[in-house]
């Protein structure tokens, strides 16, 4: 099983190299991309199975001794996040293949899209599987640099403007991360996640909390936690539909994953009431400010971006509580959220394709012209708002229950904020759905931009795009059917992250070399 670990990184990297070389053969490019991402999905599924049956797996690359070489680790949390993200990247890749050369392409260099997308996927894999802080940083950078290129693909005025904001904000967070990394190394002499828990808890409390805050700040910026979330709704809506979908699904959640690791594995032994209170406040404000922002929007894409920010708050909710039940619920919610946001952004891409606009002032009556799209939007939208029996409801219920069990002012404040956010999400979503699909008036388009009527356009949405979007919607809806086992798995993943002893002994470091002397026998290639 351990031999599979580097595959999750190598497949997309090799695919990226191959698609770069195949730049002039778009059809071959598509086959390579889909094959590589399918391979990652299969690998992730195998890793999850392995982690669930045999416990966490780890491998040290390049036959270096443990604690020196680059280690990749797949516990249940890593593998579950990796599987979810690879399903998303694969679906989005199918969507963009379906979009084909007829999409918004006039100025888009399509040949660069596939290699960049695959590199992004590789970066996500590195980040989820990283066994040391520095490799996590490298994973972040690989996916961020790819995302810079994807966001500004085509170089239109709107994308350059949004791209500049996005790149500047991301660099700030990367510099913060690197600073935190340097300080952690200066204080402890290691960046291995196996050694750090022991060494960090041995530090004076003030130093440890300082390090924790620098890292949380860096990850909070990436995860778009309030008040560091203002950049997101300004940058995502300008991107091409598939790009926005994969960003919405994955990028912020990699930040959430890093916060998860920071709070459980790294600083689990550092007890600070101030940090916990801070996280509670951030979680509440992220939920409420995000959803209030969504209500004020008149553009479907911006509205979705604000709900995305808002629901990051639910995952912080779980992290702030920090019990196994709360963390498990947050993991479940992250899986649900990655899929549901991707589904919604893909369907918004369909709406844009069908109607020619995403402005709620112009959209209208699309339900008659495109009833299929109306249904595709409605299912994940209700799911997001937390209507039973969808997975959004189950995830929120698990979080609220964990909050109620914990008790105390902070936990009840989180519960109340969670319920209010859920209701406001329902309002924002139903308003958007009604304006887009239900209202009597037809979509009004600028005649200069689009000479044909919206109804005529709606019939020309490529079936492959609809099929890919339908796939994600089906997957996220089907989460309900496997909610019980998935919630158990999520609880197990949370337990994995809290069991620092087991994690350390599996990863192996300078302090605790792995019991079976593993890591020296596998000769993988070095990660980039």
């Amino acid at each position, binding site marked *: 099983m351990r031999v599979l670990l580097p595959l999750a990184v190598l497949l997309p990297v090799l695919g990226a190299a191959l698609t770069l070389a195949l730049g002039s053969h778009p059809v071959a490019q598509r086959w390579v991309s889909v094959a590589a991402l399918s391979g990652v999905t299969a690998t992730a599924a195998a890793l999850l199975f392995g982690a669930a049956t045999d416990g966490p797996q780890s491998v040290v690359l390049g036959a270096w001794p443990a604690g020196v070489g680059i280690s990749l680790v797949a516990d249940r949390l890593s593998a579950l996040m990796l599987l979810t993200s690879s399903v998303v990247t694969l679906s989005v890749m199918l969507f963009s293949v379906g979009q084909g050369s007829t999409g918004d392409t006039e100025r888009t260099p399509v040949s660069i899209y596939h290699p960049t997308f695959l590199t992004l996927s590789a970066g996500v894999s590195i980040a989820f599987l990283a066994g040391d802080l520095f490799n996590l940083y490298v994973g972040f950078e690989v996916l961020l640099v790819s995302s810079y290129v994807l966001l500004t693909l085509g170089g239109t005025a709107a994308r350059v403007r949004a791209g500049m904001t996005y790149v500047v904000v991301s660099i700030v967070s990367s510099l913060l991360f690197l600073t935190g990394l340097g300080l952690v*190394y*200066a204080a402890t002499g290691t960046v291995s996640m196996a050694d750090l828990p022991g060494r960090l808890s041995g530090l004076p409390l003030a130093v440890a909390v300082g390090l924790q805050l620098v890292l949380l700040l860096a990850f909070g910026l990436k995860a778009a936690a309030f008040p560091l979330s203002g950049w997101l709704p300004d940058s995502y809506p300008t991107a091409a539909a598939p790009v926005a979908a994969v960003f919405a699904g994955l990028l912020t959640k990699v930040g959430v994953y890093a916060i998860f690791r920071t709070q459980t594995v790294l600083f689990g032994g550092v007890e600070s009431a101030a940090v916990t209170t801070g996280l509670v406040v951030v979680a509440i404000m992220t939920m409420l400010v995000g959803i209030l922002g969504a209500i004020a929007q008149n553009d479907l894409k911006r509205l979705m971006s604000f709900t995305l920010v808002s629901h990051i708050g639910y995952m912080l909710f779980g992290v702030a509580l920090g019990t196994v039940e709360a963390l498990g619920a947050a993991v479940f919610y992250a899986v649900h959220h990655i899929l549901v946001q991707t589904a919604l952004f893909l369907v918004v891409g369909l709406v844009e394709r069908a109607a020619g606009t995403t402005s709620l002032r112009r959209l209208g009556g699309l339900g008659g012209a495109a009833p299929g799209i109306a249904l595709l939007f409605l299912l994940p939208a209700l799911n997001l708002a937390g209507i039973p029996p969808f997975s959004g409801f189950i995830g929120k219920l698990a979080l609220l229950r964990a909050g109620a069990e914990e008790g105390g002012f902070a936990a009840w404040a989180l519960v109340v904020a969670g319920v209010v956010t859920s209701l406001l999400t329902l309002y924002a979503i139903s308003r958007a759905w009604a304006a887009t699909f239900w209202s009597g008036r037809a979509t009004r388009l600028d005649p200069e931009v689009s000479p044909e009527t919206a109804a005529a356009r709606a019939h020309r949405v490529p079936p492959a795009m609809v099929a890919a979007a339908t796939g994600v919607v089906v997957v996220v809806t089907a989460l309900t059917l496997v909610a019980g086992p998935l919630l158990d798995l999520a609880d197990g993943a949370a337990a994995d992250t809290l069991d620092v002893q087991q994690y350390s002994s599996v990863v192996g470091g300078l302090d605790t070399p792995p019991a079976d002397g593993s890591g020296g026998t596998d000769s993988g290639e070095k990660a980039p």
Partner: protein
Amino acid sequence: MTTAVVVALLVATGTWLVLRRGLLRVVVGFVLLGHGVNLLVLTAGGTDRRGFALPGQQGQGPVADPLPQAFVLTAVVIAFAVTVHLLGLLRQGQALDEDDDAEGPA
């Protein structure tokens, strides 16, 4: 001590430049900030507070801590790529509107 002063100077100048209006100054500011942080990471090294990174080095005289150097090497490459991308964006933006001031709600 010298390094601490240099890091402080680099970060202060970088922050000041990043907060300026012109986008080229922002880019240069990030280059300086990057250098400051890289120096900080370099000073984090030290073989006295931990063992030798690679086995078999004992008794061969003083050895620098290689890990922070490897970190910085990686960070420098990344910073270089990002700087080039920023400059590319800047150029594209100028070509689009002949105005490098970050005006409006950018």
